[in-house]
């Protein structure tokens, strides 16, 4: 199972606490994990990646295994430790986000 840590606002929105665990079929990539996440929690659609472009929203970042994966291809394999469930994929609201 893939482990995902959501930022607090999205945990509230999805009505979950703590980590989310997801079953992902096939290659474990940003895209496949987000597809599974949005399938389980449709309310999160559009909050992490743009509805129209499917690109990561500018003030959302992806981290795992102490690495910033935000600029990796959505189709690139995530680290093996994420694919095995040893480490979570962290979805983080950037500190730079927000106007006021």
């Amino acid at each position: 199972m893939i482990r995902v840590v959501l930022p607090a606002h999205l945990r509230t929105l999805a009505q979950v606490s703590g980590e989310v665990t997801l079953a992902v079929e096939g290659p474990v990539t940003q895209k496949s994990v987000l597809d599974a996440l949005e399938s389980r929690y449709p309310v999160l659609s559009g909050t992490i990646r743009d509805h129209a472009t499917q690109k990561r929203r500018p003030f959302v970042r992806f981290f795992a295994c102490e690495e910033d994966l935000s600029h990796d291809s959505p189709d690139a394999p995530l680290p093996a430790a994420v694919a095995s469930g040893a480490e979570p994929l962290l979805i983080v609201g950037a500190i730079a986000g927000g106007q006021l």
Partner: protein
Amino acid sequence: MSKVRLLVGTRKGAFVLTADGKRDKWDVSGPYFGGWEIYHMKGSPVDPNRLYASQSTSWFGQLIQRSNDGGQTWEPMDNKFIYDGVPGTHQWYDGTPHPWEFKRVWHLEPSLTDANTVYAGIEDAALFRSTDGAKSWQEMPGLRAHGSGPRWQPGAGGLCLHTIILDPSDPKRIFIAVSAAGAFRTDDGGQTWLPINQGLRSAQIPEPTAEVGHCVHHVAMHPAQPQRLFMQKHWDVMRSDNAGDSWQEVSGNLPTDFGFAIDVHAHEPETIYVVPIKSDSEHYPLEGKLRVYRSRTGGNEWEALTKGLPQRDCYVNVYRDAMAVDSLDSCGIYFGTTGGQVYASADAGDNWTPIVRDLPAVLSVEVQTLA
């Protein structure tokens, strides 16, 4: 006994303020959606417990919330605002073509006749409609298909469609306004749109009397006089007596005619309210005095309303959707400020009292008059 319910959208959440018809004691509930910007909330005239709210942040984008119990509980609805067809381009600030990109919902306008139909004005400017209670949204593409679309340019706050007025006498007539394109009207239910900016003069644009390009801040209409519109333009307060076909300036003796909010008394179609703001770079009242100006003559002759409002050291702004009127016999007027105050007058503006003083910056205020 009648009661009123204020729907207050702020920079960091939503608040619901309620009082009985006396409007002297208020209950405050919230924040709802804490930490999110609530650009606008509005209730259905058909079912007052049906509320719609626009919730967004720059982190996580846009959500639409719906309540069926007057704001006690909320349910997230569809948040997909996908432009119809190939979006094309509008002008960017530097005059270069820029693709139309959805950013947020500025205004939600529930239908006058169907609780499940609601209109959304968005940035980059377009008009969307839901006919299933916000479970899905479709663009009304006739507006952007107007030939002027590629020439629309954003105002300082973005290219936003911020005003939607439904004509109670004609279900096919809708008025909208866009910063900084101007005002538009449809007479065929949104199929085609007409720019209604004749008479506007904006010295800041290359062609001051252009068909489009005016920074209209807000438009108000009295439901009993749907041909008569009042407009707070970037600078200038304007009036139309022919549904926007032509406009005349009615700034009259206002100390400054820059501002954002404008509204009409519930029972007196010629009584209007504005909050003059010093200038487009200094978004605060003149002389540190927060004054609402009222005209009982449909413009030109204005009186300052100051009782209960701070008359020194006040440097707040009042945004375009942050003023509302109730429809009780003694008309109540409400407005919220960027300083987090919400002021109420239960006597048409003669006397003011702060309901709350310390909310986050207020983005919008709507009021419901409940039986």
